Protein backbone atom coordinates (compact mmCIF):
# COMPACT_ATOMS: atom_id res chain seq x y z
CA UNK A 1 0.00 0.00 0.00
CA UNK A 2 1.34 3.40 -0.88
CA UNK A 3 1.72 6.38 1.38
CA UNK A 4 -1.06 8.13 -0.48
CA UNK A 5 -3.51 5.33 0.16
CA UNK A 6 -2.79 5.48 3.87
CA UNK A 7 -4.19 8.97 4.04
CA UNK A 8 -7.61 7.74 2.97
CA UNK A 9 -9.52 7.35 6.19
CA UNK A 10 -11.21 3.98 5.93
CA UNK A 11 -11.42 1.13 8.43
CA UNK A 12 -9.14 -1.02 6.22
CA UNK A 13 -6.34 1.44 6.77
CA UNK A 14 -6.21 0.93 10.51
CA UNK A 15 -2.73 -0.61 10.45
CA UNK A 16 -1.22 2.00 8.12
CA UNK A 17 -2.81 4.77 10.14
CA UNK A 18 -1.35 3.36 13.36
CA UNK A 19 2.11 3.07 11.81
CA UNK A 20 1.90 6.65 10.58
CA UNK A 21 0.73 7.91 13.93
CA UNK A 22 3.59 6.13 15.67
CA UNK A 23 6.15 7.46 13.20
CA UNK A 24 4.81 10.97 13.68
CA UNK A 25 4.37 11.18 17.42
CA UNK A 26 5.97 8.17 19.05
CA UNK A 27 4.30 5.42 21.08
CA UNK A 28 0.55 5.25 20.76
CA UNK A 29 -1.16 6.94 23.66
CA UNK A 30 -4.82 6.32 24.52
CA UNK A 31 -5.63 9.80 23.16
CA UNK A 32 -3.98 9.03 19.81
CA UNK A 33 -5.82 5.71 19.54
CA UNK A 34 -9.16 7.25 20.45
CA UNK A 35 -8.60 10.01 17.88
CA UNK A 36 -7.73 7.48 15.19
CA UNK A 37 -10.79 5.40 16.01
CA UNK A 38 -13.02 8.44 15.57
CA UNK A 39 -11.44 9.47 12.27
CA UNK A 40 -11.45 5.94 10.81
CA UNK A 41 -14.96 5.19 11.96
CA UNK A 42 -14.04 2.05 13.91
CA UNK A 43 -14.56 1.32 17.61
CA UNK A 44 -11.61 2.23 19.81
CA UNK A 45 -11.39 -1.36 21.06
CA UNK A 46 -10.59 -2.46 17.50
CA UNK A 47 -7.79 0.09 17.23
CA UNK A 48 -6.38 -1.06 20.55
CA UNK A 49 -6.69 -4.69 19.45
CA UNK A 50 -4.55 -4.08 16.37
CA UNK A 51 -2.06 -1.86 18.19
CA UNK A 52 -1.51 -4.40 20.96
CA UNK A 53 -1.19 -7.35 18.56
CA UNK A 54 1.79 -6.10 16.57
CA UNK A 55 5.22 -6.02 18.22
CA UNK A 56 6.33 -3.02 16.20
CA UNK A 57 3.44 -0.91 17.37
CA UNK A 58 3.89 0.25 20.92
CA UNK A 59 1.13 1.15 23.33
CA UNK A 60 3.55 1.96 26.13
CA UNK A 61 6.28 4.60 26.29
CA UNK A 62 9.60 3.27 25.01
CA UNK A 63 13.21 3.81 26.07
CA UNK A 64 15.79 5.48 23.82
CA UNK A 65 16.83 2.12 22.37
CA UNK A 66 14.48 -0.77 21.74
CA UNK A 67 15.84 -4.31 21.93
CA UNK A 68 13.67 -6.82 20.11
CA UNK A 69 14.79 -10.39 20.65
CA UNK A 70 13.26 -13.13 18.55
CA UNK A 71 11.45 -15.81 20.54
CA UNK A 72 10.31 -17.97 17.63
CA UNK A 73 11.24 -21.60 17.20
CA UNK A 74 14.51 -21.47 15.17
CA UNK A 75 16.02 -18.94 17.59
CA UNK A 76 14.75 -20.93 20.55
CA UNK A 77 16.41 -24.09 19.24
CA UNK A 78 19.69 -22.21 18.83
CA UNK A 79 19.84 -21.35 22.54
CA UNK A 80 17.83 -18.14 22.22
CA UNK A 81 16.72 -18.47 25.83
CA UNK A 82 20.34 -18.13 27.02
CA UNK A 83 20.59 -14.86 25.08
CA UNK A 84 17.34 -13.61 26.60
CA UNK A 85 18.60 -14.50 30.07
CA UNK A 86 21.91 -12.73 29.37
CA UNK A 87 20.11 -9.53 28.30
CA UNK A 88 17.84 -9.72 31.32
CA UNK A 89 20.93 -9.98 33.53
CA UNK A 90 22.76 -7.16 31.75
CA UNK A 91 19.79 -4.76 31.91
CA UNK A 92 18.38 -5.81 35.23
CA UNK A 93 14.85 -5.84 33.77
CA UNK A 94 12.80 -8.59 32.18
CA UNK A 95 11.10 -8.68 28.77
CA UNK A 96 8.37 -6.08 28.30
CA UNK A 97 10.12 -3.59 30.58
CA UNK A 98 12.14 -0.42 30.20
CA UNK A 99 15.26 0.23 32.26
CA UNK A 100 14.95 2.92 34.90
CA UNK A 101 17.30 5.29 33.05
CA UNK A 102 15.12 4.86 29.88
CA UNK A 103 18.19 3.69 28.00
CA UNK A 104 16.70 0.39 26.86
CA UNK A 105 13.31 -1.16 26.32
CA UNK A 106 13.52 -4.94 26.22
CA UNK A 107 10.91 -6.81 24.19
CA UNK A 108 10.40 -10.34 22.93
CA UNK A 109 9.02 -10.52 19.41
CA UNK A 110 7.96 -13.22 17.01
CA UNK A 111 9.97 -14.17 13.92
CA UNK A 112 11.91 -11.24 12.48
CA UNK A 113 13.03 -13.19 9.42
CA UNK A 114 16.62 -13.69 10.50
CA UNK A 115 16.45 -17.43 11.08
CA UNK A 116 19.66 -18.01 9.09
CA UNK A 117 21.50 -16.09 11.79
CA UNK A 118 19.60 -17.47 14.76
CA UNK A 119 19.49 -16.48 17.54
CA UNK A 120 18.85 -12.95 16.34
CA UNK A 121 17.72 -9.60 17.66
CA UNK A 122 17.09 -6.06 16.51
CA UNK A 123 18.22 -3.02 18.40
CA UNK A 124 16.35 -0.06 16.96
CA UNK A 125 16.83 -0.88 13.27
CA UNK A 126 20.20 -2.64 13.54
CA UNK A 127 20.37 -6.36 12.97
CA UNK A 128 22.40 -8.56 15.33
CA UNK A 129 22.69 -12.23 14.45
CA UNK A 130 24.44 -15.38 15.71
CA UNK A 131 24.20 -14.14 19.26
CA UNK A 132 25.77 -15.76 22.26
CA UNK A 133 25.43 -14.69 25.89
CA UNK A 134 29.08 -13.54 25.71
CA UNK A 135 28.44 -11.07 22.88
CA UNK A 136 25.62 -9.22 24.66
CA UNK A 137 27.64 -6.85 26.84
CA UNK A 138 29.74 -5.69 23.87
CA UNK A 139 26.70 -5.02 21.70
CA UNK A 140 24.76 -3.16 24.39
CA UNK A 141 27.76 -0.86 25.04
CA UNK A 142 27.32 0.72 21.60
CA UNK A 143 23.89 2.09 22.48
CA UNK A 144 23.68 5.04 24.80
Amino acid at each position, binding site marked *: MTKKAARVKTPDNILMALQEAQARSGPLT*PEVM*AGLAASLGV*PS*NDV*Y*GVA*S*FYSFLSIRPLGRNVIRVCQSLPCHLKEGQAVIDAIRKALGVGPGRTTEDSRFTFELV*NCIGLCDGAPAMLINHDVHTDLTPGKIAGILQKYK
Partner: protein
Amino acid sequence: MGNISLTLNGTPVSAPQGMTILEVARENGIDIPTMCYLKDLAPVGACRLCVVEVEGSRTLVGSCHTPVTPGMVIQTHSPKVLEVRRVLIELMMASHPDTCIVCEAANCCELRLRATDLEVGMPRFRTRMHYFPVEDENPSIIRDMSKCILCRRCVAACDNIEGKKMFSLAYRGFETKVIYDLDKPIGSNETCRDCKTCITLCPTGALRLPMKFGQEKKGPVLYVKG
Protein backbone atom coordinates in the same frame (compact mmCIF):
# COMPACT_ATOMS: atom_id res chain seq x y z
CA MET B 1 -28.64 -25.54 -6.38
CA GLY B 2 -28.74 -29.28 -6.72
CA ASN B 3 -28.31 -31.88 -4.07
CA ILE B 4 -24.99 -33.66 -3.68
CA SER B 5 -24.34 -37.04 -2.14
CA LEU B 6 -21.73 -37.82 0.45
CA THR B 7 -20.97 -40.38 3.12
CA LEU B 8 -21.47 -39.44 6.75
CA ASN B 9 -20.21 -41.97 9.32
CA GLY B 10 -20.61 -44.75 6.76
CA THR B 11 -24.17 -43.79 5.79
CA PRO B 12 -24.86 -42.26 2.38
CA VAL B 13 -26.69 -38.95 2.71
CA SER B 14 -27.64 -36.19 0.31
CA ALA B 15 -27.47 -32.50 1.08
CA PRO B 16 -27.93 -29.23 -0.78
CA GLN B 17 -24.73 -27.70 -2.12
CA GLY B 18 -23.25 -24.89 -0.01
CA MET B 19 -24.22 -26.41 3.33
CA THR B 20 -21.47 -26.92 5.88
CA ILE B 21 -20.57 -30.33 7.26
CA LEU B 22 -21.91 -29.29 10.65
CA GLU B 23 -25.31 -28.33 9.25
CA VAL B 24 -25.58 -31.57 7.31
CA ALA B 25 -24.59 -33.60 10.38
CA ARG B 26 -27.11 -31.82 12.60
CA GLU B 27 -29.83 -32.34 10.01
CA ASN B 28 -29.03 -36.04 10.08
CA GLY B 29 -29.18 -36.21 13.84
CA ILE B 30 -25.45 -36.36 14.50
CA ASP B 31 -24.32 -34.20 17.38
CA ILE B 32 -20.98 -32.53 16.70
CA PRO B 33 -19.96 -30.51 19.76
CA THR B 34 -19.30 -26.81 19.15
CA MET B 35 -18.15 -23.90 21.26
CA CYS B 36 -17.60 -20.80 19.14
CA TYR B 37 -20.23 -21.63 16.53
CA LEU B 38 -23.38 -19.51 16.53
CA LYS B 39 -26.22 -20.49 14.24
CA ASP B 40 -26.99 -17.84 11.58
CA LEU B 41 -23.73 -15.96 12.14
CA ALA B 42 -20.61 -16.30 10.02
CA PRO B 43 -18.48 -19.15 11.43
CA VAL B 44 -15.37 -18.08 13.32
CA GLY B 45 -13.58 -21.43 13.48
CA ALA B 46 -11.75 -20.48 16.65
CA CYS B 47 -12.46 -23.32 19.08
CA ARG B 48 -11.77 -26.25 16.73
CA LEU B 49 -14.09 -28.43 18.77
CA CYS B 50 -16.21 -29.30 15.74
CA VAL B 51 -13.33 -30.90 13.81
CA VAL B 52 -14.13 -33.99 11.75
CA GLU B 53 -12.12 -36.45 9.71
CA VAL B 54 -12.51 -36.08 5.95
CA GLU B 55 -11.04 -38.82 3.78
CA GLY B 56 -8.16 -37.48 1.68
CA SER B 57 -7.63 -34.42 3.83
CA ARG B 58 -4.22 -34.08 5.44
CA THR B 59 -5.60 -32.58 8.64
CA LEU B 60 -8.88 -32.63 10.49
CA VAL B 61 -11.21 -29.95 9.18
CA GLY B 62 -13.47 -27.60 11.11
CA SER B 63 -16.99 -28.73 10.23
CA CYS B 64 -18.62 -25.37 11.02
CA HIS B 65 -16.86 -23.61 8.15
CA THR B 66 -16.19 -26.39 5.63
CA PRO B 67 -18.84 -26.77 2.93
CA VAL B 68 -19.74 -30.25 1.80
CA THR B 69 -18.43 -31.42 -1.56
CA PRO B 70 -19.67 -34.31 -3.74
CA GLY B 71 -18.42 -37.71 -2.66
CA MET B 72 -17.00 -36.47 0.66
CA VAL B 73 -16.40 -39.26 3.19
CA ILE B 74 -16.74 -37.86 6.70
CA GLN B 75 -16.16 -39.40 10.13
CA THR B 76 -17.55 -37.24 12.94
CA HIS B 77 -16.75 -39.44 15.92
CA SER B 78 -13.69 -41.49 14.98
CA PRO B 79 -11.12 -42.22 17.72
CA LYS B 80 -8.76 -39.64 16.20
CA VAL B 81 -11.44 -36.93 16.25
CA LEU B 82 -12.50 -37.72 19.81
CA GLU B 83 -8.89 -37.63 21.00
CA VAL B 84 -8.39 -34.18 19.46
CA ARG B 85 -11.61 -32.88 20.99
CA ARG B 86 -10.61 -34.18 24.41
CA VAL B 87 -7.22 -32.47 24.22
CA LEU B 88 -8.88 -29.21 23.12
CA ILE B 89 -11.24 -29.26 26.09
CA GLU B 90 -8.33 -30.19 28.33
CA LEU B 91 -6.39 -27.17 27.07
CA MET B 92 -9.35 -24.88 27.67
CA MET B 93 -9.77 -26.30 31.17
CA ALA B 94 -6.04 -25.97 31.89
CA SER B 95 -6.12 -22.18 31.71
CA HIS B 96 -9.60 -21.89 33.22
CA PRO B 97 -9.75 -21.30 36.98
CA ASP B 98 -10.79 -24.29 39.09
CA THR B 99 -13.52 -22.31 40.80
CA CYS B 100 -16.56 -24.23 39.48
CA ILE B 101 -17.72 -24.88 43.02
CA VAL B 102 -18.33 -21.19 43.67
CA CYS B 103 -19.10 -20.16 40.06
CA GLU B 104 -22.49 -18.70 39.17
CA ALA B 105 -22.50 -20.57 35.88
CA ALA B 106 -21.45 -23.93 37.29
CA ASN B 107 -24.77 -25.63 36.64
CA CYS B 108 -25.18 -24.21 33.16
CA CYS B 109 -21.59 -24.05 31.96
CA GLU B 110 -21.03 -25.23 28.42
CA LEU B 111 -17.36 -25.88 29.04
CA ARG B 112 -18.20 -28.24 31.87
CA LEU B 113 -20.96 -29.80 29.81
CA ARG B 114 -18.56 -30.52 26.95
CA ALA B 115 -15.91 -31.81 29.33
CA THR B 116 -18.45 -34.16 30.88
CA ASP B 117 -19.71 -35.32 27.48
CA LEU B 118 -16.21 -36.09 26.28
CA GLU B 119 -15.20 -37.56 29.64
CA VAL B 120 -12.32 -35.19 30.21
CA GLY B 121 -10.96 -35.27 33.73
CA MET B 122 -8.33 -33.13 35.37
CA PRO B 123 -6.16 -31.40 32.76
CA ARG B 124 -2.64 -32.82 32.41
CA PHE B 125 -1.20 -29.49 31.34
CA ARG B 126 0.08 -27.08 33.92
CA THR B 127 -0.04 -23.58 32.54
CA ARG B 128 0.04 -20.19 34.11
CA MET B 129 -3.54 -19.06 34.64
CA HIS B 130 -4.67 -15.58 33.79
CA TYR B 131 -6.14 -13.63 36.62
CA PHE B 132 -8.00 -10.41 35.96
CA PRO B 133 -10.02 -8.45 38.48
CA VAL B 134 -13.78 -8.93 38.18
CA GLU B 135 -15.44 -5.99 36.44
CA ASP B 136 -18.68 -5.49 38.33
CA GLU B 137 -19.36 -1.76 38.17
CA ASN B 138 -21.76 -1.78 35.26
CA PRO B 139 -25.45 -2.27 36.13
CA SER B 140 -26.10 -4.58 33.18
CA ILE B 141 -23.06 -6.85 33.02
CA ILE B 142 -20.39 -8.46 35.18
CA ARG B 143 -17.22 -9.49 33.36
CA ASP B 144 -14.73 -11.95 34.83
CA MET B 145 -12.06 -12.37 32.19
CA SER B 146 -10.21 -15.02 34.23
CA LYS B 147 -12.95 -17.42 33.17
CA CYS B 148 -12.89 -16.47 29.49
CA ILE B 149 -11.93 -19.25 27.09
CA LEU B 150 -11.69 -16.93 24.06
CA CYS B 151 -14.52 -18.49 22.08
CA ARG B 152 -15.26 -15.03 20.59
CA ARG B 153 -19.02 -15.49 20.87
CA CYS B 154 -19.49 -12.16 22.65
CA VAL B 155 -17.38 -10.38 20.02
CA ALA B 156 -19.40 -11.89 17.17
CA ALA B 157 -22.75 -11.38 18.88
CA CYS B 158 -22.19 -7.74 19.79
CA ASP B 159 -20.99 -7.01 16.27
CA ASN B 160 -23.56 -9.00 14.27
CA ILE B 161 -26.67 -9.12 16.40
CA GLU B 162 -26.52 -5.84 18.28
CA GLY B 163 -24.33 -3.97 15.80
CA LYS B 164 -22.40 -2.30 18.58
CA LYS B 165 -18.97 -3.95 18.65
CA MET B 166 -18.19 -3.29 22.29
CA PHE B 167 -15.61 -6.08 22.42
CA SER B 168 -12.46 -6.84 20.47
CA LEU B 169 -9.56 -9.20 20.81
CA ALA B 170 -6.24 -7.72 21.85
CA TYR B 171 -2.71 -8.89 22.54
CA ARG B 172 -1.27 -12.05 21.12
CA GLY B 173 -0.78 -15.75 21.75
CA PHE B 174 -1.27 -16.79 25.37
CA GLU B 175 -1.83 -13.14 26.27
CA THR B 176 -4.89 -12.81 24.04
CA LYS B 177 -7.81 -11.21 25.81
CA VAL B 178 -11.26 -9.93 24.96
CA ILE B 179 -11.10 -6.23 25.70
CA TYR B 180 -13.55 -3.44 26.19
CA ASP B 181 -12.57 0.03 24.91
CA LEU B 182 -8.81 0.51 25.44
CA ASP B 183 -8.60 -2.56 27.69
CA LYS B 184 -10.52 -0.79 30.43
CA PRO B 185 -12.93 -2.39 32.87
CA ILE B 186 -16.56 -1.74 31.91
CA GLY B 187 -17.44 1.24 34.09
CA SER B 188 -20.76 2.21 35.60
CA ASN B 189 -21.79 4.74 32.98
CA GLU B 190 -20.65 3.03 29.80
CA THR B 191 -22.74 2.81 26.67
CA CYS B 192 -23.33 -0.96 26.90
CA ARG B 193 -27.02 -1.55 26.34
CA ASP B 194 -28.99 -3.78 28.62
CA CYS B 195 -29.54 -6.38 25.87
CA LYS B 196 -28.01 -9.42 27.63
CA THR B 197 -27.12 -10.93 24.23
CA CYS B 198 -23.50 -11.66 25.09
CA ILE B 199 -24.37 -12.84 28.59
CA THR B 200 -26.83 -15.40 27.26
CA LEU B 201 -24.27 -16.63 24.75
CA CYS B 202 -21.21 -16.83 27.00
CA PRO B 203 -20.42 -20.54 27.43
CA THR B 204 -18.70 -20.01 30.79
CA GLY B 205 -19.23 -17.71 33.73
CA ALA B 206 -17.05 -14.98 32.23
CA LEU B 207 -20.05 -12.79 31.43
CA ARG B 208 -23.02 -12.73 33.74
CA LEU B 209 -25.90 -10.68 34.94
CA PRO B 210 -25.47 -8.69 38.10
CA MET B 211 -27.45 -10.82 40.51
CA LYS B 212 -28.40 -10.55 44.10
CA PHE B 213 -27.91 -13.36 46.58
CA GLY B 214 -30.83 -15.73 46.73
CA GLN B 215 -31.99 -14.98 43.22
CA GLU B 216 -32.88 -17.98 41.11
CA LYS B 217 -30.21 -19.32 38.79
CA LYS B 218 -31.23 -19.80 35.17
CA GLY B 219 -30.48 -22.64 32.81
CA PRO B 220 -30.76 -26.41 32.81
CA VAL B 221 -29.19 -28.26 35.70
CA LEU B 222 -26.06 -30.12 34.71
CA TYR B 223 -26.03 -33.73 35.82
CA VAL B 224 -22.49 -34.96 36.06
CA LYS B 225 -22.08 -38.56 35.01
CA GLY B 226 -20.64 -41.32 37.20
